[in-house]
Protein backbone atom coordinates (compact mmCIF):
# COMPACT_ATOMS: atom_id res chain seq x y z
CA UNK A 1 0.00 0.00 0.00
CA UNK A 2 3.06 2.22 0.35
CA UNK A 3 3.19 2.83 -3.40
CA UNK A 4 0.03 4.92 -3.23
CA UNK A 5 1.84 7.68 -1.39
CA UNK A 6 2.96 9.87 -4.26
CA UNK A 7 0.81 9.43 -7.31
CA UNK A 8 -2.13 11.39 -5.94
CA UNK A 9 -4.17 11.07 -9.12
CA UNK A 10 -5.66 7.73 -8.10
CA UNK A 11 -5.01 8.19 -4.42
CA UNK A 12 -6.54 5.59 -2.14
CA UNK A 13 -6.79 6.87 1.45
CA UNK A 14 -5.52 4.65 4.22
CA UNK A 15 -7.91 4.74 7.16
CA UNK A 16 -7.41 3.08 10.54
CA UNK A 17 -10.45 2.67 12.76
CA UNK A 18 -10.03 2.36 16.52
CA UNK A 19 -13.29 0.93 17.84
CA UNK A 20 -14.67 -0.56 21.02
CA UNK A 21 -15.59 -4.23 21.11
CA UNK A 22 -19.13 -3.87 22.44
CA UNK A 23 -20.80 -1.25 20.28
CA UNK A 24 -18.98 -0.17 17.16
CA UNK A 25 -17.20 -3.48 16.44
CA UNK A 26 -20.58 -5.20 16.76
CA UNK A 27 -22.13 -2.46 14.63
CA UNK A 28 -19.57 -3.17 11.93
CA UNK A 29 -20.41 -6.87 12.23
CA UNK A 30 -24.06 -5.97 11.69
CA UNK A 31 -23.14 -3.97 8.58
CA UNK A 32 -21.55 -7.21 7.42
CA UNK A 33 -24.42 -9.56 8.23
CA UNK A 34 -26.78 -7.10 6.50
CA UNK A 35 -24.37 -6.96 3.53
CA UNK A 36 -24.11 -3.18 3.47
CA UNK A 37 -21.31 -2.31 1.07
CA UNK A 38 -18.75 0.37 1.96
CA UNK A 39 -15.29 1.52 0.94
CA UNK A 40 -12.52 -1.06 1.57
CA UNK A 41 -10.01 1.58 2.71
CA UNK A 42 -10.69 1.12 6.41
CA UNK A 43 -8.81 -1.26 8.76
CA UNK A 44 -10.56 -1.93 12.05
CA UNK A 45 -8.54 -2.36 15.24
CA UNK A 46 -10.53 -3.81 18.11
CA UNK A 47 -10.26 -2.46 21.66
CA UNK A 48 -12.28 -3.48 24.71
CA UNK A 49 -13.45 0.10 25.18
CA UNK A 50 -12.82 3.58 23.80
CA UNK A 51 -11.40 4.30 27.23
CA UNK A 52 -8.50 2.01 26.31
CA UNK A 53 -7.50 3.91 23.17
CA UNK A 54 -4.20 5.70 23.75
CA UNK A 55 -3.91 9.08 22.09
CA UNK A 56 -0.37 8.22 21.02
CA UNK A 57 -1.74 5.45 18.78
CA UNK A 58 -3.45 8.13 16.69
CA UNK A 59 -0.24 10.11 16.21
CA UNK A 60 1.70 6.93 15.49
CA UNK A 61 -0.87 5.92 12.89
CA UNK A 62 -0.53 9.26 11.11
CA UNK A 63 3.23 8.98 11.35
CA UNK A 64 3.24 5.52 9.79
CA UNK A 65 1.07 6.23 6.82
CA UNK A 66 -2.54 6.66 7.87
CA UNK A 67 -4.27 9.46 5.99
CA UNK A 68 -7.37 9.35 8.15
CA UNK A 69 -8.51 7.91 11.44
CA UNK A 70 -11.87 6.85 12.82
CA UNK A 71 -12.41 6.61 16.56
CA UNK A 72 -15.75 5.12 17.50
CA UNK A 73 -17.45 3.62 20.51
CA UNK A 74 -20.68 3.28 22.45
CA UNK A 75 -23.07 6.20 22.68
CA UNK A 76 -22.90 8.11 25.97
CA UNK A 77 -24.64 6.15 28.75
CA UNK A 78 -24.40 2.92 26.72
CA UNK A 79 -20.82 2.06 27.63
CA UNK A 80 -20.40 -1.60 28.52
CA UNK A 81 -18.15 -0.40 31.32
CA UNK A 82 -20.61 2.41 32.16
CA UNK A 83 -18.14 5.29 31.90
CA UNK A 84 -15.19 4.34 29.70
CA UNK A 85 -16.59 6.34 26.80
CA UNK A 86 -17.18 9.37 29.03
CA UNK A 87 -13.50 9.35 29.97
CA UNK A 88 -12.60 8.88 26.32
CA UNK A 89 -14.81 11.79 25.29
CA UNK A 90 -12.94 14.07 27.68
CA UNK A 91 -9.60 12.83 26.47
CA UNK A 92 -10.58 13.49 22.83
CA UNK A 93 -11.94 16.95 23.58
CA UNK A 94 -8.61 17.94 25.13
CA UNK A 95 -6.49 16.08 22.59
CA UNK A 96 -8.34 17.57 19.64
CA UNK A 97 -7.82 21.07 21.02
CA UNK A 98 -4.13 20.39 21.34
CA UNK A 99 -3.73 18.96 17.84
CA UNK A 100 -5.62 21.86 16.35
CA UNK A 101 -3.42 24.30 18.25
CA UNK A 102 -0.36 22.55 16.83
CA UNK A 103 -1.79 22.79 13.33
CA UNK A 104 -2.33 19.06 12.98
CA UNK A 105 -5.35 18.51 10.74
CA UNK A 106 -8.13 17.38 13.08
CA UNK A 107 -10.48 17.00 10.11
CA UNK A 108 -8.61 13.80 9.35
CA UNK A 109 -9.97 12.22 12.52
CA UNK A 110 -13.63 11.19 12.61
CA UNK A 111 -15.02 10.71 16.10
CA UNK A 112 -18.35 8.93 16.30
CA UNK A 113 -20.74 6.93 18.46
CA UNK A 114 -21.92 3.81 16.64
CA UNK A 115 -24.06 1.32 18.51
CA UNK A 116 -24.31 -2.41 17.89
CA UNK A 117 -27.57 -1.69 16.05
CA UNK A 118 -26.18 0.96 13.73
CA UNK A 119 -24.64 -1.11 10.94
CA UNK A 120 -25.86 1.39 8.35
CA UNK A 121 -24.45 4.31 10.30
CA UNK A 122 -21.07 2.58 10.43
CA UNK A 123 -21.06 2.18 6.65
CA UNK A 124 -21.91 5.88 6.26
CA UNK A 125 -19.21 6.95 8.72
CA UNK A 126 -16.61 4.99 6.75
CA UNK A 127 -17.75 6.25 3.36
CA UNK A 128 -17.95 9.89 4.50
CA UNK A 129 -14.50 9.66 6.02
CA UNK A 130 -13.00 8.08 2.90
CA UNK A 131 -14.53 10.77 0.68
CA UNK A 132 -13.34 13.51 3.00
CA UNK A 133 -9.79 12.16 3.08
CA UNK A 134 -9.79 11.61 -0.65
CA UNK A 135 -10.44 15.34 -1.04
CA UNK A 136 -7.79 16.25 1.57
CA UNK A 137 -5.21 14.03 -0.15
CA UNK A 138 -2.47 11.98 1.51
CA UNK A 139 -1.14 13.29 4.82
CA UNK A 140 2.43 13.65 3.56
CA UNK A 141 2.73 17.04 5.26
CA UNK A 142 2.77 15.26 8.59
CA UNK A 143 5.04 12.40 7.58
CA UNK A 144 7.56 14.77 6.00
CA UNK A 145 8.26 16.08 9.48
CA UNK A 146 9.53 12.63 10.41
CA UNK A 147 13.15 13.61 9.97
CA UNK A 148 15.28 16.45 8.71
CA UNK A 149 16.21 14.78 5.44
CA UNK A 150 12.51 14.49 4.60
CA UNK A 151 12.36 18.13 5.68
CA UNK A 152 15.01 19.03 3.14
CA UNK A 153 13.17 17.20 0.34
CA UNK A 154 10.40 19.74 0.18
CA UNK A 155 12.88 22.49 -0.58
CA UNK A 156 14.51 20.56 -3.43
Amino acid at each position, binding site marked *: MKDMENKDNNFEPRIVAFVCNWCTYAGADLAGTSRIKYAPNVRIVRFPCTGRID*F*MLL*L*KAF*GSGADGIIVSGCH*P*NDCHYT*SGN*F*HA*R*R*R*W*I*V*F*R*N*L*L*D*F*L*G*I*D*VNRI*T*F*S*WVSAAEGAKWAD*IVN*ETVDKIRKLGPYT*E*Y*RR*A*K*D*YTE*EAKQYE
Partner: protein
Amino acid sequence: MSNLEETARSLFKEEKVNLIIGFEEGSRHPRPFFCTSTDDIPKLILDKRCHNNTAVYLTKKDLLGTGLVGIVATLRVLKSALQLSLENQINEGQFIFIAGEDASDVQVLKDKASIQSYVDAHPEIPDSKVEERLHHIESMSREDRWAFWKNELSKCIRCYACRAACPLCYCERCVAEVNCPQWIDPWAAPLSNMEWQVNRAMHMAGRCTGCGACYEACPLDLPINLLTKELSSEISEDFGKGISGNVLSSFNPADKENFFK
Protein backbone atom coordinates in the same frame (compact mmCIF):
# COMPACT_ATOMS: atom_id res chain seq x y z
CA MET B 1 3.79 39.41 59.08
CA SER B 2 7.44 38.88 59.79
CA ASN B 3 10.66 38.91 57.78
CA LEU B 4 12.39 36.01 56.11
CA GLU B 5 15.50 35.92 58.22
CA GLU B 6 13.88 35.65 61.64
CA THR B 7 11.34 33.19 60.29
CA ALA B 8 14.15 31.04 58.97
CA ARG B 9 15.92 31.18 62.32
CA SER B 10 12.84 30.19 64.27
CA LEU B 11 12.31 27.32 61.84
CA PHE B 12 15.76 25.98 62.59
CA LYS B 13 15.32 26.60 66.30
CA GLU B 14 11.65 25.90 67.10
CA GLU B 15 10.69 23.54 64.31
CA LYS B 16 14.00 21.69 64.11
CA VAL B 17 14.11 21.78 60.30
CA ASN B 18 17.51 20.70 59.04
CA LEU B 19 17.14 22.26 55.60
CA ILE B 20 15.52 25.33 54.13
CA ILE B 21 15.19 25.51 50.35
CA GLY B 22 15.29 29.13 49.26
CA PHE B 23 17.06 31.60 46.99
CA GLU B 24 20.46 33.29 47.01
CA GLU B 25 22.04 35.91 44.79
CA GLY B 26 23.41 34.33 41.62
CA SER B 27 25.75 35.72 39.00
CA ARG B 28 22.86 36.98 36.88
CA HIS B 29 19.65 36.01 38.64
CA PRO B 30 18.85 34.76 42.09
CA ARG B 31 19.28 30.99 42.17
CA PRO B 32 17.93 28.19 44.33
CA PHE B 33 19.83 27.75 47.55
CA PHE B 34 19.86 24.89 50.06
CA CYS B 35 20.34 26.47 53.43
CA THR B 36 21.46 23.82 55.91
CA SER B 37 22.64 25.86 58.86
CA THR B 38 21.78 29.09 60.64
CA ASP B 39 25.10 30.56 59.49
CA ASP B 40 23.85 30.53 55.89
CA ILE B 41 20.60 32.28 56.73
CA PRO B 42 21.90 35.75 55.79
CA LYS B 43 22.39 34.47 52.25
CA LEU B 44 18.65 33.85 51.90
CA ILE B 45 16.87 36.37 49.72
CA LEU B 46 13.33 36.74 48.42
CA ASP B 47 12.02 39.29 45.95
CA LYS B 48 10.27 39.66 42.61
CA ARG B 49 13.29 38.27 40.76
CA CYS B 50 13.07 34.86 42.44
CA HIS B 51 11.05 32.98 39.92
CA ASN B 52 12.51 29.49 39.82
CA ASN B 53 9.79 27.05 40.78
CA THR B 54 11.67 25.38 43.62
CA ALA B 55 8.70 23.04 44.19
CA VAL B 56 10.59 20.81 41.80
CA TYR B 57 12.81 19.77 44.73
CA LEU B 58 9.86 18.61 46.85
CA THR B 59 9.82 15.22 45.12
CA LYS B 60 13.59 14.72 45.09
CA LYS B 61 13.83 12.44 48.11
CA ASP B 62 17.60 11.96 47.89
CA LEU B 63 18.14 15.73 48.11
CA LEU B 64 15.77 16.24 51.01
CA GLY B 65 17.01 13.64 53.42
CA THR B 66 14.63 12.36 56.05
CA GLY B 67 13.96 15.28 58.40
CA LEU B 68 11.52 18.17 58.29
CA VAL B 69 12.24 20.62 55.44
CA GLY B 70 11.38 24.29 55.13
CA ILE B 71 10.92 25.96 51.77
CA VAL B 72 10.69 29.61 50.79
CA ALA B 73 7.53 29.52 48.74
CA THR B 74 6.39 31.96 46.10
CA LEU B 75 2.86 31.64 44.75
CA ARG B 76 3.95 29.28 41.99
CA VAL B 77 5.69 27.02 44.48
CA LEU B 78 2.57 26.83 46.63
CA LYS B 79 0.35 26.04 43.65
CA SER B 80 2.65 23.22 42.58
CA ALA B 81 2.75 21.96 46.16
CA LEU B 82 -1.05 21.79 46.28
CA GLN B 83 -1.15 19.75 43.08
CA LEU B 84 1.63 17.52 44.39
CA SER B 85 -0.28 16.77 47.56
CA LEU B 86 -3.41 16.06 45.49
CA GLU B 87 -1.27 13.52 43.67
CA ASN B 88 -0.03 11.92 46.89
CA GLN B 89 3.56 13.02 46.26
CA ILE B 90 3.96 15.11 49.42
CA ASN B 91 2.23 14.89 52.77
CA GLU B 92 1.38 17.38 55.47
CA GLY B 93 4.02 17.52 58.16
CA GLN B 94 6.76 16.85 55.65
CA PHE B 95 7.35 20.49 54.71
CA ILE B 96 6.97 23.94 56.20
CA PHE B 97 6.24 26.66 53.67
CA ILE B 98 7.58 30.18 54.15
CA ALA B 99 5.09 31.90 51.89
CA GLY B 100 5.63 35.36 50.49
CA GLU B 101 6.82 37.44 47.57
CA ASP B 102 9.31 39.58 49.44
CA ALA B 103 11.76 38.95 52.28
CA SER B 104 10.19 41.70 54.36
CA ASP B 105 6.81 40.00 54.54
CA VAL B 106 6.48 36.25 54.83
CA GLN B 107 4.16 33.91 56.66
CA VAL B 108 4.54 30.30 57.71
CA LEU B 109 2.08 27.77 56.27
CA LYS B 110 2.03 24.17 57.40
CA ASP B 111 -1.16 22.50 56.21
CA LYS B 112 -2.94 22.12 52.91
CA ALA B 113 -5.93 24.19 54.01
CA SER B 114 -3.89 27.27 54.89
CA ILE B 115 -1.90 26.97 51.65
CA GLN B 116 -5.13 26.72 49.71
CA SER B 117 -6.58 29.81 51.35
CA TYR B 118 -3.31 31.69 50.76
CA VAL B 119 -3.44 30.78 47.07
CA ASP B 120 -7.09 31.72 46.84
CA ALA B 121 -6.29 35.05 48.47
CA HIS B 122 -3.58 35.77 45.87
CA PRO B 123 -5.15 35.45 42.43
CA GLU B 124 -2.54 35.42 39.68
CA ILE B 125 -2.44 38.28 37.21
CA PRO B 126 -2.65 36.72 33.72
CA ASP B 127 0.56 37.33 31.79
CA SER B 128 -0.54 39.59 28.95
CA LYS B 129 2.48 38.60 26.82
CA VAL B 130 1.50 34.94 26.98
CA GLU B 131 -2.15 35.76 26.24
CA GLU B 132 -1.05 37.77 23.23
CA ARG B 133 1.05 34.99 21.79
CA LEU B 134 -1.80 32.55 22.31
CA HIS B 135 -4.25 34.73 20.44
CA HIS B 136 -1.67 35.34 17.75
CA ILE B 137 -1.21 31.61 17.14
CA GLU B 138 -4.93 30.87 17.41
CA SER B 139 -5.60 33.47 14.75
CA MET B 140 -3.22 31.79 12.27
CA SER B 141 -4.49 29.46 9.56
CA ARG B 142 -4.13 25.74 10.30
CA GLU B 143 -1.26 25.48 7.81
CA ASP B 144 0.59 28.43 9.33
CA ARG B 145 0.17 27.02 12.82
CA TRP B 146 1.66 23.74 11.58
CA ALA B 147 4.53 25.54 9.92
CA PHE B 148 5.11 27.63 13.01
CA TRP B 149 5.29 24.72 15.43
CA LYS B 150 7.22 22.47 13.08
CA ASN B 151 9.78 25.20 12.73
CA GLU B 152 9.92 25.92 16.46
CA LEU B 153 10.08 22.28 17.50
CA SER B 154 12.61 21.31 14.85
CA LYS B 155 15.07 23.28 17.00
CA CYS B 156 14.46 21.08 20.05
CA ILE B 157 17.54 19.13 21.06
CA ARG B 158 15.66 16.85 23.45
CA CYS B 159 17.67 17.88 26.48
CA TYR B 160 14.50 17.41 28.58
CA ALA B 161 15.25 20.58 30.55
CA CYS B 162 11.51 21.28 30.35
CA ARG B 163 10.89 18.00 32.10
CA ALA B 164 13.58 18.55 34.70
CA ALA B 165 12.29 22.00 35.59
CA CYS B 166 8.67 20.96 36.00
CA PRO B 167 7.64 20.14 39.58
CA LEU B 168 4.90 17.90 38.22
CA CYS B 169 7.20 15.78 36.01
CA TYR B 170 8.22 13.42 38.79
CA CYS B 171 7.74 10.05 37.09
CA GLU B 172 10.55 7.65 37.87
CA ARG B 173 10.35 6.40 34.31
CA CYS B 174 9.15 9.01 31.85
CA VAL B 175 7.08 7.89 28.87
CA ALA B 176 9.95 9.21 26.74
CA GLU B 177 12.08 6.39 28.11
CA VAL B 178 9.52 3.67 27.49
CA ASN B 179 10.86 1.49 24.70
CA CYS B 180 8.40 -1.35 24.31
CA PRO B 181 6.68 0.00 22.50
CA GLN B 182 8.85 2.94 21.50
CA TRP B 183 6.10 5.55 21.81
CA ILE B 184 8.49 8.42 21.11
CA ASP B 185 11.58 8.14 18.94
CA PRO B 186 14.52 8.97 21.19
CA TRP B 187 16.36 11.01 18.58
CA ALA B 188 15.61 14.65 17.83
CA ALA B 189 13.45 15.15 14.75
CA PRO B 190 10.59 17.59 14.14
CA LEU B 191 7.96 14.89 14.50
CA SER B 192 9.42 13.01 17.44
CA ASN B 193 10.03 16.33 19.18
CA MET B 194 6.43 17.21 18.60
CA GLU B 195 5.32 13.81 19.89
CA TRP B 196 7.29 14.47 23.04
CA GLN B 197 5.63 17.85 23.52
CA VAL B 198 2.19 16.38 22.80
CA ASN B 199 2.79 13.84 25.54
CA ARG B 200 4.02 16.50 27.91
CA ALA B 201 1.00 18.69 27.24
CA MET B 202 -1.48 15.84 27.53
CA HIS B 203 0.11 14.68 30.77
CA MET B 204 -0.12 18.22 32.09
CA ALA B 205 -3.75 18.63 31.05
CA GLY B 206 -5.65 19.92 34.06
CA ARG B 207 -2.57 19.53 36.27
CA CYS B 208 -0.38 22.34 34.94
CA THR B 209 -0.25 25.28 37.35
CA GLY B 210 1.02 27.60 34.63
CA CYS B 211 4.28 28.55 36.31
CA GLY B 212 6.15 28.58 33.01
CA ALA B 213 9.23 26.87 34.42
CA CYS B 214 9.39 24.64 31.33
CA TYR B 215 9.72 27.67 29.08
CA GLU B 216 12.26 29.40 31.31
CA ALA B 217 14.35 26.25 31.39
CA CYS B 218 14.39 25.69 27.63
CA PRO B 219 17.84 26.52 26.28
CA LEU B 220 16.31 27.33 22.90
CA ASP B 221 13.47 29.42 24.33
CA LEU B 222 10.84 27.31 22.60
CA PRO B 223 7.41 28.61 23.65
CA ILE B 224 6.34 25.21 24.94
CA ASN B 225 4.53 26.79 27.88
CA LEU B 226 1.93 27.93 25.36
CA LEU B 227 0.88 24.32 24.77
CA THR B 228 -0.03 23.68 28.39
CA LYS B 229 -1.43 27.18 28.76
CA GLU B 230 -3.68 26.68 25.75
CA LEU B 231 -4.96 23.40 27.17
CA SER B 232 -5.60 24.90 30.59
CA SER B 233 -7.72 27.67 29.12
CA GLU B 234 -9.54 25.25 26.80
CA ILE B 235 -10.19 22.97 29.75
CA SER B 236 -11.72 25.65 31.93
CA GLU B 237 -13.74 26.69 28.87
CA ASP B 238 -15.00 23.19 28.12
CA PHE B 239 -15.37 21.69 31.59
CA GLY B 240 -15.99 24.77 33.70
CA LYS B 241 -13.76 27.03 35.77
CA GLY B 242 -12.24 25.73 38.97
CA ILE B 243 -12.02 22.20 37.58
CA SER B 244 -8.44 21.04 37.90
CA GLY B 245 -6.29 18.30 39.35
CA ASN B 246 -7.36 15.15 37.55
CA VAL B 247 -9.34 16.44 34.59
CA LEU B 248 -8.51 13.52 32.33
CA SER B 249 -9.29 10.83 34.88
CA SER B 250 -12.66 12.25 35.77
CA PHE B 251 -15.68 13.10 33.65
CA ASN B 252 -19.06 14.69 33.65
CA PRO B 253 -21.89 13.01 31.73
CA ALA B 254 -22.85 16.52 30.60
CA ASP B 255 -19.47 17.26 28.98
CA LYS B 256 -20.12 19.12 25.75
CA GLU B 257 -18.44 18.53 22.41
CA ASN B 258 -19.49 19.35 18.87
CA PHE B 259 -17.40 16.98 16.79
CA PHE B 260 -18.73 13.49 17.55
CA LYS B 261 -20.76 12.04 14.67
